[in-house]
């Protein structure tokens, strides 16, 4: 079972805003023709520039895929531990189960928040890479007298997405710190739980599946 908290909604709202904004701003962006990397009218430097911009898109796509996979991994883990008691008290009801369960939930929750935030950043990163590619194509076409495009909206879009990405990335380090804090707490509780005679075999079973 997934447990939603207010932080998830914030991230989703942010992602929605970004996508909505990108969608709205796209209306102003002129359609820029694709330029071939083998176009003989372009200089070698221009082709390299184009290729670099295309590579950026590919890299951003790969980054998005990886971010999605990480979110899925943590979600799966969260679902697995959500369905059953992961820790059991030892003989004589030893070991603070609820404390350890809570810290595990919080830790996984923090991990999920971080991964989701990274996913949002990766999505914006991809939009930005695409906008940059558009900009590079437009600039190249203008420089080599192949076409004329109004550059202002294109540049504006790139700058806007940069700001969006900056905003999305700025909170990541804080989330990492949060994950780290929760991890430290979890393992501290885990060590105490084991010392008190708590049973961890269910945790191992869940992690072995």
């Amino acid at each position, binding site marked *: 079972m997934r447990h939603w908290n207010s932080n998830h909604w914030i991230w989703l709202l942010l992602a929605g805003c970004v996508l909505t904004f990108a969608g709205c701003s796209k209306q102003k962006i002129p359609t820029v023709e694709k330029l071939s990397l083998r176009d003989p009218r372009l200089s070698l430097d221009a082709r390299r520039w184009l290729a670099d911009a295309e590579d950026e898109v590919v890299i951003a796509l790969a980054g998005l895929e990886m971010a999605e996979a990480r979110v899925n991994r943590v979600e799966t883990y969260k679902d697995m531990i959500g369905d059953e008691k992961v820790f059991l008290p030892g003989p004589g009801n030893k070991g603070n189960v609820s404390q350890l369960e809570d810290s595990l939930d919080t830790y996984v929750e923090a991990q999920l928040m971080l991964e989701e935030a990274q996913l949002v950043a990766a999505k914006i990163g991809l939009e930005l890479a695409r906008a940059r590619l558009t900009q590079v194509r437009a600039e190249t076409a203008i420089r080599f007298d192949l076409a004329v495009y109004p550059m202002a909206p294109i540049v504006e879009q790139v700058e806007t997405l940069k*700001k969006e990405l*900056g905003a999305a*990335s*700025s909170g990541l*380090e*804080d989330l990492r710190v949060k994950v780290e804090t929760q991890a*430290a707490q979890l393992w501290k509780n885990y*060590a105490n739980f084991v010392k008190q005679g708590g049973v961890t075999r269910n*945790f191992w079973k869940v*992690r072995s599946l």
Partner: protein
Amino acid sequence: MYRLTHEIKSNLRLRVTVWALATFVCGMIQGCAPENQVIRDQLVVEQLRLRITKVRHAEQETRDVIAASRGANYLPELYMRLAELLSEEASFHYMVAYEREQRSTKSLHVPQVRFLKEQSINTYRMILQRYPDTRLADRIMFNISHEQRELGMFDEMKETLEKLIVDYPDSPYRNEALLVLGDFHFDKMEFEKARENFDKIINQEKSLLRGLAHYKLGWVGVNLGNCKMALKNFENAIVASRKGSPEKALTKKVQMRLQGDFAIPDDDSDEHEFAGHKTVNVQREALVDLTYCYAQERKPEKAVAYLRNLAATREAYVAALQKMANRYALVEQPRGAADVTRELLRLAPDDEERLDDARMLHTAVSKMKDYSMVGEDVYLVLRTMKRRLMAPDLNAASAKLVRNEMELIARDLATKSHEVLMSKSQKKNKWTDNPASYEQTAKAYRWYLNAFPESVAAVDVMQNYADVLMEAKEYLEAGRRYRDVAAMLQKPPVEVPDEKATDTKTKDAKGKDAAKPKPVDKKALAQARKKERVEALYNSVVAYQKSLDQITSRSHFERAAARAGLRAAGAQYLMEANATGEKDRKIKFAIAQSYYDEGSYHNAIDLLTAIAYEFPQTPQGDASVHMVLDSYRTINDISGLVNIGHRFMAKDSPVNAELKAQIQPIVAAAEQNRLDELSLAASGDQVGGMETLLSFADRYKDSDLGERAVLSAFVAARASGNLKQLYSLGERVLKQFPKSEQAGGVVSTMGRAAAARFEFDRAIKYMEEAATIDKEQKASLLLAAGELREQLADSDGALKNYREALETVKEGPGAVNALVHVVDLLEKRGSPNDVIREVQKHEQILDAELSSRLGLALLKKGENYEAEDQLRKVVEGAVDASPQAQARANYGMAEINLKMLEDFGAIEEIGMIEELIGVIDVTVQSYLAAVRQVDPVYSQAALARLARATEIGAEKLEKIQLPADLSEEERTMVKQALGARAQQLRVDSKEVLAECAQRAKNSFLLDAAGQACISGSPPRKDPVALEPLKSRRSKSNLSGVDEYRDRLSKNPEDLEALRKMGKAFLDAGDAHAARLVLARTIEAGGDAEDLNRLGVACYNAGDLMGALDAFKRAMDAESQSAVKNLSIICEDMGLRDVAKELNSKIKGDVKGDIIKKGAGR
């Protein structure tokens, strides 16, 4: 008629009805009655009788032909045909009798046969008698012998055959005769005689009967008890039969006549294919028959290969194997029996005999205790069983028996093999060096389990199988099988049918003291099974782990399977075993390690961390710590690595001090790595990189890492051109880390960055601040700040900076440089005394640069001799003097000479005239040398002063008062000469002046010298005067230019931003700042209007020469406004002609910046 007809019809109907009913009843009776048995003999006898009838007809026909052919040359053939027909008829009669006797015996008394055969013999003899030379003689004799044999006249037969052999040695019937004779002696047990006859056949190379003869000889050998001979002949028989017809090779069957089945051969036939005769496959028979002797003479382990080599067909091979198996069983030779039965089980048809073979194989193998092929043996036994079970004639009871028996055999073989493996003492026996192998035993178990998965013994067998696989190092498979054992033990145990229960009951009924069956303790059984299951799961984990530890190359699939299996078995074990201590620890570590090995590092990190905390200070716990760190490093999660590293190094961590010492450098390196990573991201184009880096810096704010992070952020801000952030971070460094080694560098960088943004006041402030921090760079920073101040007309501030820089370095090139700055500034301020004082204070560092300046300062003060000393050092000796120093020195020397010329006194004697002329020449030459220097100011001044010098020279010459002691004639001559010389000097003066004026007009170097030249009157005193800038009006903190400053921070060559900045400064009245910005604009590729604007800025700042130079260059670049500006300046200077000329060049309206007349003063 009708009645009659009707009666007839009625009668007919009745008859038909009765007949139909009778037919039906008969049919029914016939149909219901049991079928009469068909007597097969009747049919054969009928056929034989028919043949007899046909043969008799043929005899009659032949006789008729013979009667009609008296005297014909083919008569012998007709008689022969008749004899053969008689013999044939006799044969049919015999067969009829044979059939009548139900084939019970072949020894029959049939008079008709004897009569016909005797008739036949008589007919043959008659032919030989009447036609002794007939070509049919050998055949006739052979036929006679055949009939004699049929009639039991063996002596006569022998005589006839011997005569045939002797009389017709080349006859094709010779070998046949020998064969019959051989058989005759063989039957009479006269083996030597038989051998002689067979040998005669063999000795004939081309005989087709050689194979058969060898075969017969083989049997002779058997009967003589000579197995070597027998084997040799059987082998030869097979080989000879193969060679019998090269065209047909091995497929050819040699035909032969068996005793008692003779027929008349076709004498033309090369192959002796006697139609109707029973044939024998010599190759097959020889192969089968040789087995008896082979078992005695040869090694049993080679029997199978031997037979396979000789066998022409599979059928022959199988037949021989069967016989061989029986033979070995009889002589109790287990090696041979095992090999042969294995081959039989492989190849022989699926009939009941195979079960015997399986039993025999089991017996043989068990007797030998050689289980080296037990895997295949079990496979063969079970395959035989399966095939037999499919037999349609097998009922359920029999099938069960077969099944049970074979199950026992298979289990016995496999377990006995396992026992041998386990028993060290039975490694070797007389039958084999390697009685068992793990691979074969594992195979045997596998086949067993495939065949009997539900067997009562299946669990035990599976357990054994897994154990054997472990021993065979087939760990992956062993792991799987142990899991199978665990799974089987989870199911309820298979109920064992208690076959003795019935007996027990019976016994009970009889009242005997039969022991009651012990009640099964189900709880104890369940506990035992659970214990076994847990053990199996543990073994499974161990096996999987060993599989993963194997260095041998495993496929990806196998590795993945092993890991998955390990985790599943491990989890099951943990859930069921309630294990504690070492086993628990090992299992958990194995699970975690499987994730680590397969590259699932996120899972591995969690589980290995759990182990580190759960089992601290154990081998697994310590290894987990390292593996966690390595996992983070592998996935390049440096942040995670740093975090976990700190956690492990914390006070309450489970890690011991030694391990902490090991991971400390790893964590430190990771932190630096993380910082580098973030710095790289921040300095690149990656959005958000700076924020992350600053968050990192905040996190480590009290450590060196925090300092390095802020410094990296500072560098990144510099690289990205974000100057606001740069200043902010720079201030943060100074505030947060005031003792940082990089503080000076940070402030100086801020100063340079500010200068690049034309934030001059800020730049000066930072540079001076940096100078107080960074002692090494202090002098250069102060000089840079001073230069900026000087350019901004803060002469006092600049001088202070320069002097402080000079005090800092004191000696060396740095000191010279600082002193030059000081002296230059003093020079511009027009205070030669200060120059002299400053230089003389630092006499120890005096060089050509400073000497040239000191010389000119001394000259200005009138200390010509001291000046000459300094200037001469530069002109004559200083190789390192700069062109400017050279220009100054030459000009100064020329000025000294001119002073000497001016001061030249009255001529008191004629010799002084020559001296005067010499001074004039030296002065002219020294000015000419100064003119040739590259410095335009001193060059132009020298040219102007040259005009003045020649003028003075001319005046001096013209005003000479000649000595009185000269004669009139001499006086006239001297005066004429001096006059001419003076005249020449005046001409030269005018020319030089014109040249100077032209040069000034061309270059618009309209300084005092230039203006004097243009006005036509050479300067009467030294025209070189470096004018200071005007005081600065505004400061550089303009508003509205931040955008351009930011752009310039990112791209200092941004021409548009430079232009905007320059114009903004100019508009704000800060001409000094504008002058610097616009000069940079020109360097960055500015155009004519930029040059014009630079000129305006220079003009407004009081740099007239700079303004003229800029306007001149702008005019050359066709700037109309520059022409206008030049004309205004010329007008202001009083150079109206020049201004007029310039105005004439102006076309249309002038756009662009225009100076205000007099603003530059």
